[in-house]
């Protein structure tokens, strides 16, 4: 039987340049029609330090990073020691035999990458030798990599005419080394060519593209891992007429500036991570109170406080719904895949305009740093909400109607005061009890507009549901499929719309005996929210800074059944 997927891990020291090789390998395979997902953890230091990245290649869409490693490529001794135990029983470890000296076993495979590469005449072909060896080991047709090489370096004017044949030669040398030793995983099935075009990107790129598709006009932010790349993307791509992007001096400036811009009529966003998000508490309350649409992206990292900047966690849920003092309940959308990062961002902008207030897009390190292929979005099919703008002239009252009212925009009719204190219909401060009642109810009633969102719901008859959120979706879905294979009676529910939950889904959840929530935090934050909404929910938690493994979930779920 052929394999349907495999996992290759590359491990060494930051700066050794193997990361681009790893991404190149993933990308080459996606070009051939395979699906790929990368996973990496970095130390917080800038250069050097133990670094690794793995790529899972599959004939099906990849749900998780892969529990175990089929082939490990190591670039130093430390990497070998740190990772050797995660290689599968029948997997392989590959290394440059001139650089490392690893005790021999039938698992371990030393090839003189560097030396063989140089024989092609290209002094930098070592990685190509390595990739050729890899392809042979995992049973990927060498032509997949050859095509990649041709496209990547095919521009003769730029790269000269030698580089392509040299690299192909290197690929072959690597492949031959492996062939000669007769080592091989069982072959992988040929890719099923998908009928939709694919793009290959990470979660933060997907969020940035989603914001662009939703018509973002204003972005300011302050650098913070793992959200910085969104700022960098915007700085590159949002410098346009009638748009504005800026690195501001703090997260407090960021949140209040985007509120100012949105008050001025612009679709506005900022992105941050935990520490910056906490600093935005007061500003988020202002946007809620004054009813100003904004999108705030929180790319979660390990918390609390400065926490674990380069590790993943899903522990900002409680504080993103209720970040500030007073009665607030912020809408939260938590994408679970790179694709959902794109569509979830568009929905976040739509929600902000629909209910006229702040929306939190709750992403996470594990999505931000993951490279993945997804179907290329079709622009013409995207639904983008426009702002409802007031045009009526005389004595318009911004906060009068019981529900959503068109927003007046400076320069246009309907001047009012956007007010963080309790206010009357034109925005002037008031302390009248009946006004606080009226306005509080107005602010909460608007949330009803957001309660008809999509959700996944499979095997609805089962009295027990598996319901992960955010980036735990992938490993949970894979676990769910494993349980289905074992004919275990369990249902599946999922939505990225965490607050407010889709109304119909909530009714379903309440009818279950148990809703199992895999989530990457200590408190079991989502299950706790579900219980407060009268759902009998229980969490499977993990707080290691790493995503779930599928096997772990299968075991834990089975224990709960």
């Amino acid at each position, binding site marked *: 039987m052929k394999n349907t997927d495999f996992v290759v891990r590359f491990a060494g020291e930051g700066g050794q340049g193997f990361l681009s090789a790893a991404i190149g390998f993933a990308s080459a395979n996606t070009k051939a029609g395979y699906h790929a997902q990368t996973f990496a953890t970095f130390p917080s230091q800038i250069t050097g330090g133990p670094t690794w990245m793995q790529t899972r290649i599959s004939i099906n869409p990849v749900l998780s990073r892969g529990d175990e490693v089929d082939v490990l490529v190591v670039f130093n001794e430390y990497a070998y020691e740190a990772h050797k135990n995660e290689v599968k029983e029948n997997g392989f470890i590959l290394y440059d035999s001139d650089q490392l000296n690893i005790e021999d076993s039938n698992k371990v495979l030393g090839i003189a990458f560097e030396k063989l590469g140089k024989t092609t005449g290209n002094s930098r072909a070592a990685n190509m030798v390595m990739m050729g060896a890899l392809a042979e080991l995992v049973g990927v047709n060498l032509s997949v990599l050859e095509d990649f090489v041709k496209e990547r370096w095919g521009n003769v004017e730029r790269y000269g005419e030698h580089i392509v044949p040299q690299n192909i030669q290197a690929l072959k040398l690597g492949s031959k080394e492996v062939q000669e030793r007769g080592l091989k995983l069982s072959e992988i099935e040929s890719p099923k060519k998908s009928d939709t075009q694919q793009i290959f990107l990470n979660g933060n790129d997907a969020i940035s593209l989603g914001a662009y598709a939703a018509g973002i006009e204003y972005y300011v932010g302050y650098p913070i891992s793992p959200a910085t790349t969104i700022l960098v993307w915007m700085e590159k791509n949002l410098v346009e007429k009638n748009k504005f992007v800026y690195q501001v001096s703090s997260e407090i400036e960021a949140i209040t500036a985007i509120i100012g811009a949105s008050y001025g009529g612009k679709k506005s966003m900022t992105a941050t991570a935990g520490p910056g998000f906490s600093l935005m508490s007061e500003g988020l309350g202002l946007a809620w109170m004054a009813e100003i649409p904004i999108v705030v992206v929180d790319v979660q990292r390990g918390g609390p406080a400065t926490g674990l900047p380069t590790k993943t966690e899903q522990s900002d849920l409680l504080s993103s719904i209720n970040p500030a003092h007073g009665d607030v309940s912020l809408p939260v959308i938590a994408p679970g895949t790179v694709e959902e990062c794109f569509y979830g961002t568009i929905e976040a902008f739509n929600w902000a305009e629909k209910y006229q207030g702040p929306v939190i897009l709750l992403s996470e390190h594990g999505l931000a740093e993951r490279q993945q292929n997804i179907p290329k979005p079709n622009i013409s099919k995207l639904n983008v909400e426009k702002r409802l703008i007031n045009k009526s002239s005389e004595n318009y009252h911004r906060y009068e109607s019981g529900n959503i009212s068109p927003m007046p925009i400076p320069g246009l009719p309907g001047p009012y005061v956007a007010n963080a204190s309790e206010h009357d219909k034109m925005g002037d401060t008031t*302390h009248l009890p009946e006004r606080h009642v009226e306005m509080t109810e107005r602010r909460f009633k608007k949330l009803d507009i957001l309660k008809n969102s999509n959700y996944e719901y499979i095997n609805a008859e089962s009295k027990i549901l598996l319901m992960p959120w955010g980036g735990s979706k992938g490993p949970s879905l894979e676990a769910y499929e494993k349980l289905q294979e074992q004919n275990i009676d369990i249902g599946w529910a999922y939505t990225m719309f965490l607050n407010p939950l889709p109304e119909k889904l909530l009714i379903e959840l309440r009818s279950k005996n148990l809703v199992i929530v895999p989530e990457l935090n200590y408190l079991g934050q989502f299950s706790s929210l579900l219980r407060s909404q009268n759902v009998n929910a229980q969490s499977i938690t993990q707080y290691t800074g790493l995503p779930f493994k599928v096997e772990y979930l299968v075991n834990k779920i089975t224990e709960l059944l």
Partner: protein
Amino acid sequence: MSEKKNPEYDFKWCPGCGDFGVKKALEAAIKKKTIETEEPILNNVIVAGIGCSGNMVHLLEGEQPYGFHGLHGRTLPVAMGLKSSRPELNVTVVAGDGDFLSIGAEHIAPQAKRNLDVCVVIMDNAVYGLTKGQSSPTSAEGMITSSTPYGKTEVGFDPLAHYLSLGVSFVASGLSSKIKDLSELIYQGMIHPGFSIVHVQSPCTEYNNTYEILKGNIKKGIEPLAKPIDVSHNPNDLKQAIEVISTPGIPLGIIYQSKDEPTLAQKYENLINKSKQKDFETLLNSYSI
């Protein structure tokens, strides 16, 4: 006294509060600006801080501009968001000394370095009015307030020197009771292309009544502390400006005004010229495999 825009609004300044004068001056400046520039009043936004002073935004009489009354200390970033996205608006910030120089102090330098084209009117009473009389950065060392019952232990903050050192491109100093002069200063700040601050002495009759000190009292032989700047002063000269604020007393008038310093909007315009127009499809295609 000011007529309320609507009967529910339940804040009034105390009798004699300096902010009444600032209100009249601001109203006149806005009026002049709309007439001179032939821009509609709806292009005006008042961004207010939290303090007695910030209530200005609700108390303005006559044709109403837009208003934003947000958080304590955050006027400037709100104004930054608004003005950088809508450069055609006339954005005026009103705030107190506590709001602007204590909790909001971090926001001044960035706007100065960017040269954001907004006009800031500070109502300085050297005290926290709305929270009932605590010391503020501009309270003098040794001053007794409810939060400094044995005297303030911090050196009093010199706001004008601070603005100049940060490179604020228009710095003026006014007195709330000199409404006409003040109005002209605010107007000049509004039309100045760049970051403008009009720092106004606006006494708090309830907690720090400085009228007599500021205006003097001939009968008692008290010299006025606040005096108009000599007409010979050239506000385009930073050195002269520094000298003006270094002489004892509070100078009234335009202290400094830079010439031809590009505003943030102008600088941003240059960036746009450097960058390539994008469209979504192109951006998307850069991720094609």
